């Protein structure tokens, strides 16, 4: 028998204790025990046991069982108030440390907040469509392309309609770009051809007109409310007939096509008005033309019929609407199946391993693809900013952690007293976490102020004129901020809270915890911060020098005083003659693209009579004056001359070399074939006509004279009094084309603007580098301040014993200087190799030598030494009497 045989059955006692309401437990258990003892005496253990069991089971009833949700509504208000009060007092008491923590967290938080605002702004796009969760855009991709295209073959929308798993499809084909004329009023209008299904798939609503029929009839047009207002004023726009002349204006993004002489497409009836500015969408347009207008345009040869052109997937956007119950993988299967069958016999180069994939409508805004409908930041941009933000956030969080742990001693007594008074480890953890969250929320307040400064700065970046971030702060973003701050607080406070709550109350009260928590940990953190700082400093210096390199780049041609004027469909000969008459104009040339500004056209050719592969080359259609205008050199053969056959071409030196001609002379006179035969009459010295960030450097180039394809007139003017010359040019333009405005750009400006985005990168990186260094230095400042304070007495005694000030500085600085050196030893090679990863991908790159690396190291060391030195110097200068007097 067990020794505790005078106890009731343990199992049931345990059961009772488990289920019983805690308020009743003790008294009832007492009754049960008393009763049990009496019964045992009266009628033996067995009966007493049985009766006990019966009693327990009968007690198992709702009023006795404890409620599941906890029985005590304990009011912790008093304790929380105490935590809050102690937290605030600590912040106020140690002002330097609080400043370091709050400022560091605020700075890094503001960058994260900026990112949140950007993402929040982008997430507002395309949310208004009622069927947004069922609409997908079809992307085209090939393994060779860097990214998928947002466009797809023209015929895709109607072909996919046959599949039962797709409810509806619609296409948008940009091709409307020209002048709309109503009475005396003329406006440029750009937009898409669209089907009636447009209004079914998308959530756009018509301000005026009937959405169901607006795009049904041929020659119907839906226009934006601004356009309607401009053309018709206050008059009713519906039913008005306007004339439209196509000029092939670039749409949807600037670099698509360049315009041509106006061709009348006839009259169009306005059937709807849409207030496009009220929608936040990836789609923007002035007009939607009914797709049923297309057949007539095909037959009049005014618009190319691409219905059966499956090799061209660069122009049309296809959207599909899935039924309520749908499965995206099924859509993918359908698309795969479709491609398999459709592309079985198509062998074009650009459709090799062709693939179609769906992209959710709501993902479009953040998922920029090739040929997209507007300029947006690609997702890699968000990752980039996110990475930067996280790096400095981590640095600031580590500062907090580091300083809190380092200063553990200041809190040890408090923890000891709390523990003696019955605080659990849990409550100490809670206290310190609430303190760190408090600090984080204070930082949030500061960060919101900082945001007031960095938000406009970001909006003023050059790229934002394309990206158009609005960054409104809505209620929900504030909630995100508050949550974010709380999370950051928890993150920062986690380690100190766990670390400090571990103290045993006895040693804490005795003051036995005098030294080194985790000096290893703290050292690692400091080294880590400085490695990151060094990396950012070196990177921003490098990107800046790369930027300067690009800005001063020798393209191999002279862009000074060259003005590029958009032809806008005017006759080149007429305009060039007129402009040539302006005094101050040295020469006038024409071309289809402006070299080195981002647009390139390709051509494939091979030597006549051979059967080998075609060679790829870039082609620029130029006037003969092009060579003189840009001061290019002819190294072999002769230049083009006006009014000769357009079969004559110039090639560049690279072309000659690449195609197997050792001497440029040898290629002169050779005949090549592409669609037609072309004869090389001269070789031009290599010049940079691709974007400088292009990997190719200089690729084979063909220059050919076909005035009917020109898009630009390039005028070289004398450098004296350019303003007068330009006004005279404008006057001439007005004579030739009274309708369209004179649009010109200095070539120099155009070239440097291609690198503006890099300058923005420099600005962002430089800013982040600055923040990283500031945060790291603040952390270091905190650490040195703390150590020197703790060593005041030691310094005093040493001084009394005759130590020199300089010797003391050395003594106090030694530990942290070593950390700085370790950080440099790790950080320098890291920044060198990491930066070389991207630098090596550039053909035209700056030399990444010791200079940049040393400059970065110097900046970092200077700041670090300054931070450490300021504190140690102050400490060693102190009069020992002051430090030793007080005890």
């Amino acid at each position: 028998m067990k020794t505790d045989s005078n106890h009731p059955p343990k199992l049931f006692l345990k059961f009772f204790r488990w289920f019983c309401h805690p308020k009743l437990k003790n008294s009832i258990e007492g009754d049960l025990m008393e009763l049990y003892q009496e019964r045992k005496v009266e009628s033996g253990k067995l009966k007493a046991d049985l009766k006990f069991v019966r009693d327990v089971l009968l007690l198992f009833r709702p009023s006795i069982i404890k409620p599941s949700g906890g029985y005590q509504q304990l009011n912790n208000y008093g304790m929380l108030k105490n935590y809050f009060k102690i937290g605030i007092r600590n912040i106020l008491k140690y002002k330097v440390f609080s400043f370091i923590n709050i400022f560091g967290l605020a700075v890094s938080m503001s960058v994260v907040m900026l990112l949140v605002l950007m993402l929040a702004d982008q997430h507002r796009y395309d949310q208004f469509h009622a069927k947004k969760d069922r609409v997908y855009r079809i992307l085209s991709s090939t393994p060779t392309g860097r990214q998928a295209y947002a466009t797809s073959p023209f015929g895709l929308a109607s072909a996919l309609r046959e599949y039962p798993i797709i409810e509806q499809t619609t296409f948008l084909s940009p091709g409307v770009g020209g002048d709309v004329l109503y009475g005396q009023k003329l406006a440029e209008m750009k937009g898409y051809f669209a089907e009636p299904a447009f209004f079914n798939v998308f959530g756009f609503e018509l301000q005026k007109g009937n959405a169901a029929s607006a795009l049904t009839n041929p020659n119907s047009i839906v226009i934006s409310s601004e356009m309607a207002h401009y053309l018709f004023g206050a008059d009713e726009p519906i039913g008005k007939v306007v004339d439209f002349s196509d000029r092939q204006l670039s749409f949807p993004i600037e670099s698509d096509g360049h315009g041509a002489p106006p061709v009348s497409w006839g009259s169009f009836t306005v059937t709807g008005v849409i207030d496009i500015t009220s929608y936040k969408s990836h789609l923007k347009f002035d007009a939607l033309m009914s797709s049923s207008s297309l057949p007539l345009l095909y037959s009049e040869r005014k618009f190319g019929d691409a219905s059966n052109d499956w090799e061209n997937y660069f122009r049309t956007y296809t959207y599909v609407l899935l039924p309520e119950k749908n499965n995206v993988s099924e859509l993918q299967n359908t698309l795969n199946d479709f491609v398999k069958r459709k592309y079985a016999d198509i062998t074009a180069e650009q459709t090799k391993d062709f693939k179609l994939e769906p992209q959710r409508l709501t993902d479009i805004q953040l998922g920029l693809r090739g040929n997209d409908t507007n300029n947006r930041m690609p997702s890699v941009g968000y990752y980039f900013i996110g990475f930067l933000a996280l790096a400095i956030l981590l640095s600031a969080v580590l500062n907090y952690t580091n300083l809190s742990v380092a200063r553990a001693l200041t809190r040890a007594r408090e923890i000891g007293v709390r523990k003696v008074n019955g605080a659990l480890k849990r409550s100490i953890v809670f206290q310190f976490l609430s303190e760190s969250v408090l600090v984080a929320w204070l930082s949030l307040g500061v960060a919101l102020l900082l945001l007031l400064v960095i938000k406009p700065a970001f909006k003023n970046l050059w790229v934002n004129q394309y990206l158009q971030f609005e960054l409104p702060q809505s209620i929900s973003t504030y909630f995100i901020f508050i949550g974010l701050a709380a999370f950051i607080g928890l993150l920062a406070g986690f380690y100190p809270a766990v670390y400090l709550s571990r103290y045993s109350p006895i040693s804490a009260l005795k003051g036995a915890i005098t030294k080194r928590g985790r000096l290893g940990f703290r050292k690692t953190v400091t080294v880590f911060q400085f490695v990151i700082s060094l990396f950012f400093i070196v990177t921003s210096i490098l990107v800046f020098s790369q930027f300067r390199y690009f800005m001063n780049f020798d393209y191999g041609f002279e862009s000074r005083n060259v003005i590029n004027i958009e032809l806008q469909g005017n006759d080149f000969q007429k305009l060039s003659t007129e402009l040539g008459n302006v005094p101050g104009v040295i020469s006038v040339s024409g071309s289809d693209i402006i070299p080195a500004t981002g647009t390139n056209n390709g051509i494939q050719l091979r030597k006549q009579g051979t059967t080998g592969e075609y060679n790829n080359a870039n082609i620029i259609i130029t006037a003969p004056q092009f060579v003189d205008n840009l001061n290019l050199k002819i190294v072999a053969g002769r230049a083009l001359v006006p009014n000769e056959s357009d079969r004559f071409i110039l090639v560049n030196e690279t072309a000659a070399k690449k195609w197997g001609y050792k001497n440029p002379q040898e290629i002169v006179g050779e005949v090549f074939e592409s669609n037609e035969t072309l004869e090389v009459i001269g070789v031009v010295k290599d010049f940079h006509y691709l974007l400088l960030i292009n990997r190719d450097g200089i690729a084979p180039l063909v220059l050919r004279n076909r005035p009917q394809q020109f898009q630009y007139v390039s005028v070289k003017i004398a450098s004296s009094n350019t303003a007068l010359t330009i006004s005279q040019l404008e006057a001439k333009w007005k004579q030739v084309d009274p309708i369209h405005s004179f649009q010109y750009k200095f070539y120099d400006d155009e070239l440097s603007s291609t690198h503006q985005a890099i300058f923005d990168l420099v600005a962002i990186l430089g800013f982040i580098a600055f923040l990283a260094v500031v945060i790291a230095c603040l952390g270091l400042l905190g650490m040195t301040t703390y150590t020197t304070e703790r060593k005041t007495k030691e310094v005093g005694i040493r001084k009394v014993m005759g130590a020199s000030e300089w010797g003391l500085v050395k003594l106090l600085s030694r530990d942290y200087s070593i950390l700085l050196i370790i950080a440099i030893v790790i950080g320098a090679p890291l920044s060198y190799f990491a930066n070389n990863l991207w630098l090596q991908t550039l053909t035209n790159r700056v030399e990444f030598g010791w200079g940049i690396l040393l400059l970065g190291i110097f900046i970092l060391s200077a700041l670090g030494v300054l931070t450490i030195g300021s504190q140690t110097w102050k400490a060693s200068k102190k009069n020992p009497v002051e430090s030793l007097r007080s005890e």
Partner: protein
Amino acid sequence: MKKYQLGEFEEVVMLTVGILYKDAYGLSIKKEIESRLKRGVSVGALQTALKRLEDKGYLKSFDGEATEERAGRPKKYFQITALGKKAMEYSKSTRDELWRAIPKVALELKIVEAL
């Protein structure tokens, strides 16, 4: 009527608490009822009633001494509150009223019949 609700068992418990006066705790109440009314009372039923009466405000309780046979658990003593007293009085007066309302004949007849 709604004002003071007292079930039959509840009333018995209240009365017993009154009888025991300063010595009314769980087990003593149970024993008192069992010995006076000759009926078995389970701990569960009693505790439920006590809790309900306390919730209604008819009884109040305080912790008393702990003894060895109770394994160190305190006794929980109960006392009738003023409200409890009113409820008991109300319950008694309604019964008395009902009693008085019964015609004497009815009872006498019954007795005769029973005989």
